[in-house]
């Protein structure tokens, strides 16, 4: 997957494709000239804060809204002007939107009953039973939907969509209403289900952890635009800017002004006058001198040692003092205050600490990282 140039002809390798899609509501631009393709059978996520246009994008695929400009393709065919009830996609709604006046069987069979010619009652019931089994709720068919727990309602909503064997399943923050433990379970269940049925899943979420753990590909959005899209790994290791690095995982930022740059490294001078050097991401152009930029270092890339310990001179090292330590089991999370670089978050694995019990608040320490662990990122 990747960004698709607007002129490319469809080879139907994409299940869902956006070409120059813009959606305006009065004078608000919800989606701003987006082009993208989702490969057949992929688990794809739109990730971003509320109001970034991710839900609108999903609604454009479902057909609840029509693009102001551009085209949406489903299975290689333009669906411009096609109403939602004629599109081969199905949606799992945020609050599930189960029909309260129907029981579980009637809810799940709803999609089949809309078809013409109308399938036989026995056939519908058989398919409903099969689908109930798939979501592990066999025997719940006669229940009223409001009698079910949140997790069960979620699975009924999934079953109601999947029974129609859509080209693509759309999930609008499907796990937001569940508690944390149930959410983890459902994440795994969703992934398994997706592999089993082999249907393209498109997920909308504001939860980066959810997107990272489930998706093959993620599209990060802000203010209606795509900021970056790619595999979770790529977004984590090679964020194109500060926004992405901040959204995907935790990161330490050292903000400042560009003072010097080469083809591979950029030096940034912080407000307090300290200079730090970071690597430029492959293919990126160096930011101009005097422009705002940040050096970003992931907490797990930083190692921590006693202040007087000798350091590998090739590494970048900063002196500091431990402010706080949170024991997380396999990791410890340190907050270190430094002179000139602010507070730094360090994630230290237990295996390294076991010999010296780690550090306590108030200890003077030295933190260091390899030069290639620091990335230089533009602000936008």
């Amino acid at each position: 997957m990747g960004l698709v140039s607007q002129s490319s002809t469809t080879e139907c390798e994409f299940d869902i494709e956006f070409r120059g899609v813009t959606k305006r509501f009065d004078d608000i631009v919800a989606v701003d000239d987006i082009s993208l393709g989702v490969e057949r059978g992929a688990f794809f996520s739109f990730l971003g804060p509320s109001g970034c246009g991710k839900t609108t994008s999903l609604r454009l695929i479902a057909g609840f809204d029509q693009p102001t400009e551009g085209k949406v393709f489903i299975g290689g065919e333009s669906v411009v002007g096609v109403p939602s009830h004629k599109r081969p996609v199905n949606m799992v709604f945020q609050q599930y939107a189960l029909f309260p006046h129907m029981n579980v069987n009637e809810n799940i069979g709803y999609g089949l009953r809309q078809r013409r010619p109308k399938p036989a009652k026995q056939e519908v019931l058989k398919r409903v039973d099969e689908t109930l089994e798939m979501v592990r709720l066999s025997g719940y068919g006669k229940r009223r939907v409001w009698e079910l727990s949140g997790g069960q309602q979620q699975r009924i909503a999934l079953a109601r969509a999947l029974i129609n064997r859509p080209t693509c399943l759309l999930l609008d923050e499907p796990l937001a209403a569940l508690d944390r433990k149930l959410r983890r379970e459902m994440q795994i269940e969703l992934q398994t289900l997706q592999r089993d049925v082999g249907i393209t899943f498109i997920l909308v979420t504001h939860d980066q952890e959810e997107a990272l753990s489930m998706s093959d590909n993620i599209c990060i959005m802000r203010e209606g635009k795509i900021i970056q899209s790619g595999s979770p790994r790529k977004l984590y290791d090679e964020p194109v800017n500060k926004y992405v690095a901040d959204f995907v995982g935790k990161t330490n930022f050292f903000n400042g002004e560009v003072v010097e740059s080469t083809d591979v490294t950029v030096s940034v001078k912080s407000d307090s006058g300290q200079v730090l050097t970071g690597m430029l991401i492959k293919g990126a152009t160096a930011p101009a001198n005097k422009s705002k930029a940040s050096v970003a270092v992931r907490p797990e890339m930083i190692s921590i040692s006693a202040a007087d310990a000798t350091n590998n001179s090739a590494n970048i090292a900063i002196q500091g003092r431990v402010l706080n330590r949170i024991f997380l089991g396999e990791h410890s999370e340190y907050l270190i205050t430094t002179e000139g670089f602010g507070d730094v978050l360090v994630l230290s694995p237990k295996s390294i600490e076991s010999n010296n019990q780690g550090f306590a608040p108030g200890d003077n320490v030295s933190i260091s990282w390899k030069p290639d662990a620091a990335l230089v990122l533009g602000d936008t």
Partner: protein
Amino acid sequence: MKVSNKSNRWLTAALLAPTSVWFVLMLILPLIVILVFSFGERAAVGGYAGGFTLEQYANLPSRLKAFQNTMTIAPAGTLLSLLVAYPLAYYLALRVDRKYKLILLVLVIVPFWTSLLVRTYAWIFILGGRGIPSLLELIGIEGVRLINTPGAVLVGIVYGYLPLMVFPIFVSLEKLDKSLLEASSDLGGSPLKTFMQITIPLSMPGVATGCMLVFILLMGEFLIPAFLGGGKVFFIGNALVDLFLQSRNWPFGAAVSVTLVVIMLITVSLYMRMTLRSNTGRDESLM
């Protein structure tokens, strides 16, 4: 806990007392009086003369026409009000731009600011000889008589009772979760099927409430048939006015009243059982 329970009980009793007293004095007692009167005899000069007789009830068939009219026009008027009110409520709840919603809702109520009597009087002119029929004559349709027909009474009923039907339906449509409509469409339901399978069933509580309100009030209606029925289309209400105020036959009037109450109790309880069953125990089922 016992003490506070006890004081709670006193408080509850105190709060309920005014309503209870009002209820007993203004509803229960008069009903008992009516019931007693209905088994009595008419005094020679009119009014009530005591005694015990079933004569009044035996005489009921003489007012058969009033019962027949009420029992046909009240349900018909309810149904017609529903047919007119539903599209209006649907438009107000689901279609109209938010900006205009409040204004349009107020416009539905505005007629209530004038007495129904005055507004119904206006219909006499609209439907009367110099109203619509004279306009029809201009385009060559002659001899149309509208006033003093069941049709005129129905028009008056729909006009007068529309807001009572619109509001309960509007409320149930407005609180209808719009994502249910999207879900239906998403699952392949055409707009018509979505309307039939989702919108209508989920607005039934409002429909039931509206129909009940209008029907109960229509059973006792007398103003509209008196004005627009012109003595040709009369309801039980008109018969009662006649019996109590004109011919002063109180015991017979009482018997007609009791019969009306009994008919209403039977139809309303049948109706409630029907609507409750179709909503099997949902908390928002009725009213």
